[in-house]
């Protein structure tokens, strides 16, 4: 029974979640694209720009604003540090998961570790805890909604189970139970649609933790298109509006 459950979570549900996320994410983007454009400029004029001056490279500025968040750096430096570390870690985490694929080898094929040796997950967990706890305090608490907590809790749970997998891999006296290559076989089978049972690649005793990690990741992907995380697609166009 448990094996069947984990099989559903780790194979069919993964396909479903990814397809769902891509489809609904596309719908959300298309909805915005289909709407009429704003009838006039929503630009803010920075110091040094005149009323008739065209904006200076607004697209480059929008990318700069979206990726470096200068307004947050200026007005809330502590939050900015956590946000930057969080977003950089997310990119590294994405790379680390890609690196599991046998076709990509940032870390050596026979490495027992993922990219970052488990540190990325820990850093992310710290950042997420900060982002979560700051929501418990006035004045951010007053403007937060359940969805804000849910997305952070979901991510935190996924990160913690990821950290546990990393840590749990060293439980065996003989060293690492599951290596990068083992996880690679699982992902490769997913990519090749073999529908194989992941249990045959992942032999560790903490298989349930891996299953939970995948389950949380699936839930996160299902929720993502309806959450504010969609800002990853809109941060640049939004900043472009401000830049003119």
């Amino acid at each position, binding site marked *: 029974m448990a094996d069947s459950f984990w099989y559903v979570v780790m194979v069919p549900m993964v396909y479903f979640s990814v397809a769902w996320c891509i489809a609904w994410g596309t719908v959300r983007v298309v909805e915005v694209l289909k709407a009429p454009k704003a009838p006039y400029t929503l630009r803010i*004029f920075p110091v040094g720009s005149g009323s008739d001056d065209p904006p200076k490279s607004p697209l480059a500025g929008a990318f700069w604003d979206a990726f470096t968040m200068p307004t947050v750096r200026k007005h809330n430096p502590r939050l900015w540090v956590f946000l930057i570390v969080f977003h950089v870690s997310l990119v590294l985490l994405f790379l680390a998961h890609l690196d599991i694929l046998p076709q990509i080898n940032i870390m050596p094929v026979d490495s027992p570790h993922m990219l970052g040796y488990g540190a990325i997950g820990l850093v992310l967990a710290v950042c997420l805890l900060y982002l979560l706890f700051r929501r418990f305090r*006035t*004045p951010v608490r007053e*403007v937060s909604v359940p969805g804000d907590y849910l997305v952070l809790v979901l991510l935190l749970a996924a990160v913690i189970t990821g950290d546990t997998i990393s840590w749990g891999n060293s439980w065996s006296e003989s060293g690492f139970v599951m290596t990068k290559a083992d996880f690679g076989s699982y992902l490769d089978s997913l990519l090749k649609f073999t529908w194989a049972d992941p249990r045959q690649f992942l032999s560790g005793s903490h298989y349930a933790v891996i299953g939970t990690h995948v389950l949380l990741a699936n839930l996160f992907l299902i929720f993502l298109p309806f959450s504010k995380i969609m800002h990853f697609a809109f941060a640049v166009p939004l900043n472009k509006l401000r830049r003119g």
Partner: protein
Amino acid sequence: MEDSDKKEVLGLLAGSLNQAMRMYMENCARCGVCIEACHAYASTGDVRYSAVARAQNLRRVFEKNHSYTGKIAPWLNEAVELDARWMDKVYETAYTCTGCRRCMTYCPFGIDTQQIQAIAKAMLYAADMEPKPLTMKAKESAAKGQKLETAREKFQREIAAIRQELAEVFPGKSPEEIVPLDVKGADVLFVSMAERISILPAAKLFTAARTNWSLSYFEAVNFGAFLGVPQLTRQIYERITNEVEQLGIKTLVICECGTAFRLMKHMIGKRSFEVVTILQLLDRYIREGRIKLDKSVIEGRVTYHDPCQIGRSAGVYEEPRNCIRAVTDSFVEMHPNRMENWCCGGGGGLVIAAEPEFRMMTSRVKVDQIKATGADILTTACEMCYAQLKDLNEEYELDLRVSLVSELLAEALILD
């Protein structure tokens, strides 16, 4: 709230969902960075008076009607059904915000609360819940454009005293030459506040600069914009655009009115004429030596309040300062200034729409900023700011002279 009213109000919300609005509604991370940006929050510590809280009042209605989560799991983003009770929250969004857009300079995405506020205002108008003095003034303005002949006669009577006063300053010139009307092919059409305070200094300075100008029959301020009603807004500004086009004038000069300038400059689309503020024109005259000013006339330390709609929203920062520096060596900046300047607390029509107690309470941060300059004269370039700053001066006993920049220039003018 009647079903038909609700349908109309929600229809307005649906109709306003352009690309920008959709993104503003769906992408706020509620990080709270904008909270500190609002003068009302900074003055009271009340989170209701923050950009994010005001936007949430509308975002929750949006969630209920236009988002999948709002329909399936309304608890997730606290979606709400629009009803009479919630319309009070919509009112809070619309009329506790001055639309100064300072929060945009804090938000990592640049969400424009003024746009959200404009929709809230339009919804209130549809529900007949808007502040009535604004509607009355907007309708008066629109009617003035429809009954043109009556409006012209009335306006000519109103400016007779100003003409007479200036005729004494410029002997040898007829009152009609000093304050000219209906001048076809003039270089400049000046749109005033239709009041002495903006007509008199402008006429004096234009006459001294030998400007070939014409005074518009209409006032610059657009109460339709303060109500967030596009049809009324258009009706009101079209009175002026028609006048410019009929007279064949190439430059439209807007008096010290922030909303009017931003509207005419950046929001009505490309036209056959250029739009400048009076201070841009006067700055040019000073640089060209067309007007000469005596620096000994204005006594005391002078500071300048950047109007949000002229500064942040339209990029006119330096010209007013150049004008002030031409009449005094004792100019002192407020801090923060320019793009980051605190709003006066009276913008967005709040000078008319909001209770004076609210305006005074939410502008403490502005008062502290003014006090810190140690100035004797407080100048600005917007009539709404001017009215609010005068009220603050009185309420907080700042003992300042509050003045428009053009007034100072007219006072310091050296007549040939």
